[in-house]
């Protein structure tokens, strides 16, 4: 089937791109710094200790051999060990993954449910008060540093008003772990107080993360709808007197949506990137804070592991976006 051929074609690029990413991170971790082993060993190590460590880590072997070994280990899921936690990095990341995903999904749900309808209305009521207000808001939304937004929200809602907690994912004990997502687990176990607590903790970080995504989504949906409104088929439907709500909510939205779907997919990647900084602000126990703490502790392997992981996710998301776009736009299926 042609869809399969298309998917396979896109998939074929996945491996080389991933390898390219690995090469870049390898180069960054081995070639660029003056002496990576010395950095790992720390400042107090003697030259003899550094040499011993070099041999132990295998850094005395030729570079291509090191790279092949690096790739082989990654294929087995071994990202090395964190210098700080002394645990396998892959394990550390997996442990913290649900928190990041919960935050990212919450932000995405908010941006989609609020952003797309606002974008449509903004286009329909072009140059109205709502449209102008939204345009100002979306331009501003993309100009605000998200870590600063997070801090300002904390200042207002947590410190001054006391409506939400300051940071963290939850106070007290988490619900019984089924999915790893606190909200979902709390609902599944009927633990309503915890659900409320988790929701309050999620509020500010999700809002911070969602803000730029929301702004982008409103802009793109607006542009998409305005673009489709110029189409000849819309003109035809108007000429034939089809009721306006049918034209807008069935035909225009559906056409504008094919481009919005692609945006939503890309948004996921952007949100994941934004999660790093947002988690740092709110002490959210996810992958982002792990990366930031690793940076501050010069935990090399951990930072590299995180980079590889984030990059791979991004590539996968792009692939899914491509495939979804193919599915959603029927013209692509037959071409």
């Amino acid at each position: 089937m042609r869809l399969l051929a298309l998917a396979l074609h896109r998939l074929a690029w996945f491996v080389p791109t991933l390898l390219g990413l690995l090469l870049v991170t390898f180069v960054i971790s081995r070639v660029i710094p003056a002496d990576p082993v010395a950095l790992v060993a720390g400042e107090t190590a003697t030259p003899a200790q550094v040499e011993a460590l070099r041999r132990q880590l295998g850094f005395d072997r030729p570079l291509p051999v090191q790279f092949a070994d690096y790739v082989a280990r990654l294929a087995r899921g071994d990202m090395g060990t964190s210098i700080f936690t002394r645990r396998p990095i892959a394990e550390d990341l997996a442990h913290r993954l649900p928190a990041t995903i919960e935050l990212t999904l919450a932000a995405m749900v908010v941006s989609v449910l609020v952003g797309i309808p606002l974008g449509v209305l903004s286009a329909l009521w072009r140059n109205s008060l709502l449209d102008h207000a939204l345009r100002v808001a979306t331009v501003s939304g993309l100009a605000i540093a998200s870590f600063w937004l997070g801090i300002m929200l904390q200042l207002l809602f947590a410190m001054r008003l006391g409506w939400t907690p300051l940071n963290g994912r939850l106070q007290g004990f988490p619900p019984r772990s089924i999915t790893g997502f606190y909200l979902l687990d709390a609902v599944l176990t009927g633990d309503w107080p915890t659900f409320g607590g988790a929701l309050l903790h999620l509020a500010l970080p999700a809002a911070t993360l969602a803000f730029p995504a929301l702004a982008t989504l409103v802009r793109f949906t607006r542009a998409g709808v305005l673009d489709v409104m110029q189409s000849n088929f819309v003109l035809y439907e108007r000429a034939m007197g089809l009721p306006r709500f049918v034209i807008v909510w069935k035909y225009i939205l559906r056409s504008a949506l094919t481009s919005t779907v692609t945006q939503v997919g890309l948004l996921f990647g952007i949100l994941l990137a934004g999660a790093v900084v947002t988690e740092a602000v709110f002490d959210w126990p996810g992958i982002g804070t792990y990366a930031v703490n690793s940076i501050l502790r010069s935990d090399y392997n951990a930072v590299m592991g995180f980079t590889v992981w984030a990059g791979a996710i991004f590539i996968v998301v792009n692939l899914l976006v491509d495939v979804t776009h193919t599915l959603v736009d029927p013209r692509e299926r037959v071409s």
Partner: protein
Amino acid sequence: MSEPLLSVRGLHVDFVTDRGVALVLDGVNLDIGPGEVVGLVGESGCGKTTLARAILGILPPGAARIRGGEVRYRGQDLLRADPIAVNDRVRGRGITFIPQDPFTSFSPVFPVQTQIMDLMKWKSPRAGNGDGAPSPFRRYPRERYRADREAVLDTLRAVQIPEPARALRRLPHEFSGGQRQRLMIAMALLPRPDLIIADEPTTALDVTIQAQILRLLRTLVKERGVSVLFTTHDLGTAHEICDRIVVMYAGQEVEAAPTAAFFSHPAHPYTRRLLASVPTPDGEIRDIPGEVPSLVEPPAGCRFHPRCDYASAECRSARPAPRMRAAAHAVSCYHPVDAPPGSDA
């Protein structure tokens, strides 16, 4: 003629452009009788598409302004009637549309069936008049759906679409240009309209298919007694299927005559030039000297006077009113020509 089905009187339409306000339609008059095919002929920019869209009510809301005049359909002025009622009961019912570009007039993401049946849901002759504005909650009764679908299949057969039931399930891009235009003809006929506005329906098609489509259209409308307002820049096309031809120049209608009389006794200097400029077997090309005027600052009076051999002072001061020369043959000119065509240089 008997009470015209559609009557346009003194229609003025302006367009706001970068360079100023363009006076696109200058008090245009037009009549269409029941069951007649009227061709609206003119060069690009003469305002024929604007006139067609003004009748349909789909001028671009920001850029276009209707400054005055009336468009009477069955005696009711569409420009001053309740817009919701007009949208519900006239558009897609009494007056339907065949667009110029069949390639982009379908939504590309829905199968043809969805779009045709949506049309039938709201515009089928079997639908009642509804009470007031259309509502999102209106349902589509099963019985009527089936009857409508039968009518759709019949009409698709009439426009010679092979295997109509299978065709309905296809996406628009799976059809050729000619087939898509046949679909448009079918959709224009299904609501059993009084008048079809066809805006250059064959311009975007291959020359070889144009004649087919035209003849099909003419056969079907004559069978059903439907009027057609057919805009085109091609005199040959007009000759093919029109009962009557109206010529427009720079936003003014200049001559209107039954087809035979139009070709045998053209009276307006512009019409004569137009007919003379059609390439002939002897290979000579006769242009009309001069250029189409800018509509932002159009010539006063008769807008053709700068290029006209017979222009005089009156032509420059006031626009000539239409005068009857023979039965149903009207000319807006102070110096209509009596000689047979081709006799002036």
